[in-house]
């Protein structure tokens, strides 16, 4: 008897809610589709439906999900009425899901869409949206390779004067004359940082000269992997200069990965050892002024270089010479004069020329009401 009463109550409530929904004119969400999100690693499914029109009485949407034979579960928060897409990123790879979009009315009446077919998240090998970026990179690489080929064929490539790099010999010579060491910091970034790679290439050139002059080169490292690469590079430089006996592995050492502890350690080294020349090349953060100011206070000649634009002002204020941004990347070509690096440098100039042309042409076209360049750049990025 009680069960029958319960059934009657439930049925009445359901009928009432449906009738309320219909009385409000609440239509179920239409054209609901659930597809595997394209160009991802298979960790999401995208659900789409037609957005509610004005005056439809819909105040929001709720997404419901179910595994093949499982229970319906509500996912995510209540979406606004103008939403027409939802990306479910909380799925398990290899599991198929079905979805229902529930329209919620202003009086909290609800109406459900039809259930979507089962869909599974699968990863893609290629991100098709990045093909324009790939083409741009291939063109850029082709320009660099062409210039490298040109440089290797014996053509002389001009590189403009960079004062900070002309001072490298002066700094090493000064340290040699004073019988004091040279301190070289590769910065705070890891081995795959572009500035760290550039810094290590410069270090290779500095090491060649210190091998020649028999000047102590001290390199405190923040990253254990950078430490190993730096040791290899300096050792190779000493070998190539015919001075393997002068190489001392203990001069290249790990301090700590902690930013300010590293700064404190290097600062202490500067104060105690009083190096005659200090190179701060790579990525630096808030510790830049601590290092540069301490180096300045011990009277060292300082050559800094970084692509961290927020730290450049401090280096410019406290160091003798500063390589600004891309000058750091150009430094290795400038110092070594190797055809490969010189060719690469000119290839990069071609890239900059292309940007230059794109800006001028883009401005002219935009003023004429044509948006080709901005559309192209939007697709590429």
């Amino acid at each position, binding site marked *: 008897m009680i069960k029958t009463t319960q059934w009657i109550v439930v049925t009445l409530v359901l009928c009432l809610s449906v009738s309320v929904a219909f009385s409000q004119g609440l239509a179920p969400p239409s054209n609901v589709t659930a597809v595997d999100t394209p160009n991802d690693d298979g960790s999401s499914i995208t659900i789409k439906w037609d957005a509610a029109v004005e005056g439809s009485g819909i105040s929001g949407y709720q997404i419901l999900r179910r595994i093949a034979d499982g229970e319906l579960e509500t996912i995510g928060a209540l979406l606004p009425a103008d939403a027409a897409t939802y990306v479910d990123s909380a799925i398990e790879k290899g599991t198929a899901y079905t979805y229902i979009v529930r329209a919620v009315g202003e009086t909290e009446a609800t109406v459900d869409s039809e259930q979507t077919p089962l869909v599974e998240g699968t990863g893609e090998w290629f991100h098709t949206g990045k093909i324009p*970026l790939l083409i*741009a*990179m291939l063109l850029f690489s082709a320009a660099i390779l062409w210039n490298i080929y040109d440089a290797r064929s014996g053509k002389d490539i*001009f*590189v*403009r004067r960079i004062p900070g790099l002309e001072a490298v010999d002066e700094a090493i010579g000064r340290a040699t004359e004073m019988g004091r060491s040279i301190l070289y910091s590769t910065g705070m970034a*890891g*081995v*795959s*940082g*572009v500035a760290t*790679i550039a810094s290590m290439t410069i270090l290779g050139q500095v090491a060649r000269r210190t091998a020649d002059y028999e000047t102590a080169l001290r390199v405190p490292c923040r990253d254990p*992997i950078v430490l*190993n690469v730096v040791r*290899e590079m300096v050792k190779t430089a000493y070998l190539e200069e015919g001075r393997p006996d002068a190489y001392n592995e203990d001069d290249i050492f790990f301090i*700590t*990965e*902690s930013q300010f*502890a*590293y700064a*404190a*350690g290097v600062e*202490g080294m500067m*104060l*105690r050892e009083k190096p005659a020349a200090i190179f701060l090349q790579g990525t630096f953060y*808030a510790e830049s*002024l601590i290092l540069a100011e301490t180096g300045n206070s011990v009277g060292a000649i300082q050559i800094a270089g970084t692509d961290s*634009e*927020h730290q*450049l*002002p*401090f280096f*410019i204020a406290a160091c003798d010479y500063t390589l*600004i*941004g*891309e*000058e750091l990347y*150009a430094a290795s*070509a400038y110092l070594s004069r190797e055809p490969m690096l010189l060719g690469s*440098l*000119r290839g990069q*100039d071609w890239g*900059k*020329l292309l*940007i*230059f042309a*794109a*800006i*001028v042409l*883009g*401005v002219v076209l*935009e*003023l*004429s*009401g044509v948006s080709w360049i*901005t559309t192209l*750049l*939007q697709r*590429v*990025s």
Partner: protein
Amino acid sequence: MDFWSFIGIWVAAFLTLSIYSVLYRDNPFYRFAEHLFVGVSVGYGIVLSIYQGLVPFALKPLWETVETGAPEGFIKLIPICIGLLFFARLSPRHTWLIRYPIAILIGFGSGIAIPNVLRANIFEQTRGTIAPFAEIAAGTLSGWGIFEAVLMVVGVICTLTYFFFAVEHRGPVKWLSKVGIAFLMIGFGSAFGNTVMGRVALLIQRVDFLLNDWIASIRALF
């Protein structure tokens, strides 16, 4: 104030003053604080590497594979073995093996970084420089907005000219790059002022700690 809070304030105050003592000159207090700081950070780093790197990315997946015996799980052994090659440095005879993980790491890192740098630092910024001119053409930009858009283009072109390395800076190139350097220095000047203000705020925070917390703890003694 409980006993441990009191000790904590005194240790923090002692280390703060020890670190600031370097402003006078190198001294035993600074050395003590420096070595303690470096030592503690290395120890903390090692524990962090074990619990956030070694255990979740190497030991746990390996153990799960051994437990389930799923043959595809053994593919995880490849990156683990590549990582282990870093330890080849400990053997002078096999030290050359370290070049393989380093080469993989640099190649992988560059491959990830370069497209992102191109997208964020070149394409997006070029588009951002040009985009306001569409608004100028549509007549929706104010006089000040037009001035800003033109100033931006002039600044970008001149600064870009400064970074041409394979071209001699003579004639118009020289003048454009000189204007570019002026733009750079104005930018650096404003960044300098902005960051110094942030650093002063940090100093105020430390001085506030010494004056309020530490001095208050001294008063509490008497």
